[in-house]
């Protein structure tokens, strides 16, 4: 009986890993920065510079520069901390924007799947700028009835925290 149950569970695993809930989540955050757009863009333009401007990312290891398909690995919280792997999908220096996706996450820090986001700088035309971060993703839990640490709310909370902390620090660095 027990063996049978284990077998059923094992069979169910690949399905769980492949699926996600049907409701994609959206998070968008903007911050007005009292610094020229070019200065803000210079801080984030390098795909792997996130290790310098995001307070939650202690280290970034990247390959491929700023070419589409470039990869980076983020170490969260500490040098041997949880890792998040990401890939550059679109890069437009003239428009000061890029898009990337998460290829592998650690659900303990970011319980999401099929995540992609845009990071952009907008010139307000008066010497100030607006930095914007917007992402679309699903919760990491692929079945019905997710545990609280992997439900839609937990996924949103983790992404909102990431964006707000990152943008606040970017503003601080740019206005120095």
């Amino acid at each position: 009986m027990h063996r049978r149950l284990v077998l059923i569970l094992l069979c169910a695993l690949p399905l769980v890993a492949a699926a996600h809930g049907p409701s994609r989540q959206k998070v968008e955050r903007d911050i007005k920065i009292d610094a020229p757009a070019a200065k803000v863009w210079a801080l984030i333009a390098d795909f792997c510079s996130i290790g310098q401007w995001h307070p939650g990312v202690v280290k970034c290891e990247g390959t491929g520069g700023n070419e589409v398909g470039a990869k980076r690995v983020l170490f969260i919280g500490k040098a041997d901390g949880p890792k998040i792997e990401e890939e550059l999908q679109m890069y437009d220096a003239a428009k000061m924007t890029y898009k990337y996706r998460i290829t592998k996450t650690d659900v303990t820090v970011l319980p999401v799947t099929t995540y992609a986001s845009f990071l952009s700088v907008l010139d307000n035309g008066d010497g100030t700028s607006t930095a914007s971060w917007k992402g679309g993703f699903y919760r990491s839990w692929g079945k019905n009835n997710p545990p609280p640490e992997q439900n839609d709310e937990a996924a949103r909370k983790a992404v909102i925290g990431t964006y707000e902390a990152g943008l606040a620090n970017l503003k601080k660095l740019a206005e120095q």
Partner: protein
Amino acid sequence: MTRAGAARGVAALLALLGGAPLAAAPRAYVTNQGADSVTVIDLADRRVLATVAVGRHPAGVAAGSSTGDYAYVSNPDGNSLSVIDLRRARAIAEIPTGASPLGLAADPLRPRLYVANWYDQRVEIVDRDARKVVGAFAVGRIPAGLAVSRDGAWLAVANRDDHAVQLLSLPDGAQSARIAVGRRPFGVTLSEDGRLLFTANVKSDDVSIVALQARREIARVRVGDAPYASIHDAKRNLLFVTNQQSGSVSVVDVGAARELLRIPVGDYPEGIDYSPSLDRVYVASWFDNALYAIDPERLAVEAQIPCGDGSRAFGDFIRE
């Protein structure tokens, strides 16, 4: 006020008083997943007529001519369908369903809806008159998009995690056939003549063209990143495909089985439909909360109409 303006004012007043114009222009019913609502759009005027409150996180929609005086939307997080009275532009009932209803299709012959239960390997049968689930078909893993043939002879189910389309004979599903397609098929649509079936394959970044008579895939056409759904323009034999991750619509020459170009639209384009009377393709952009109108002759975006948060419109969302 100009004469045209005055006429519009009178029309709006009549609409407010509950008298919908008899010769109604085509309308779009766009599900707004983040706003728990449906935006009703007059497509000729490109004007929002109403915002209808529905169930939780609406995604799928069946508003084509076979649903009569009503349109239906699926609420995956509410485990229900909302019934919208088209004349009153109001949700008048909610039908409980199984877990996570997403894909939705209406039967052109019978007063039925088919509802894909994302988690349960099931497609439920809803009686539109009784407004309740009356049965279910067992299907493959993660059923996503649904389509019913024009003659009502069979139902196509995109079983996303089986990488296949399942054909079920109607009314009872007595016969079932499986056709292998690309990786993770999501939206499934038919050509106008009913001879071809198309799936948008999210994982393999392509569309499968399936010959229904032969019941096999005859071509696979590479498109943009993470294709979601498609619509066939019979006049030009073109397939328009939404690419979620590219923010574009691919235009595929069906006869030549190749992609002609990509038209940039808003981010995360999802639901797509065609209005024969206006000869326009309409695309809902989930991230930009808008409906884009594409001219299939010039192959360019012509207008953008604001919708509610997270516009998805997965299914037949246009009523001629």
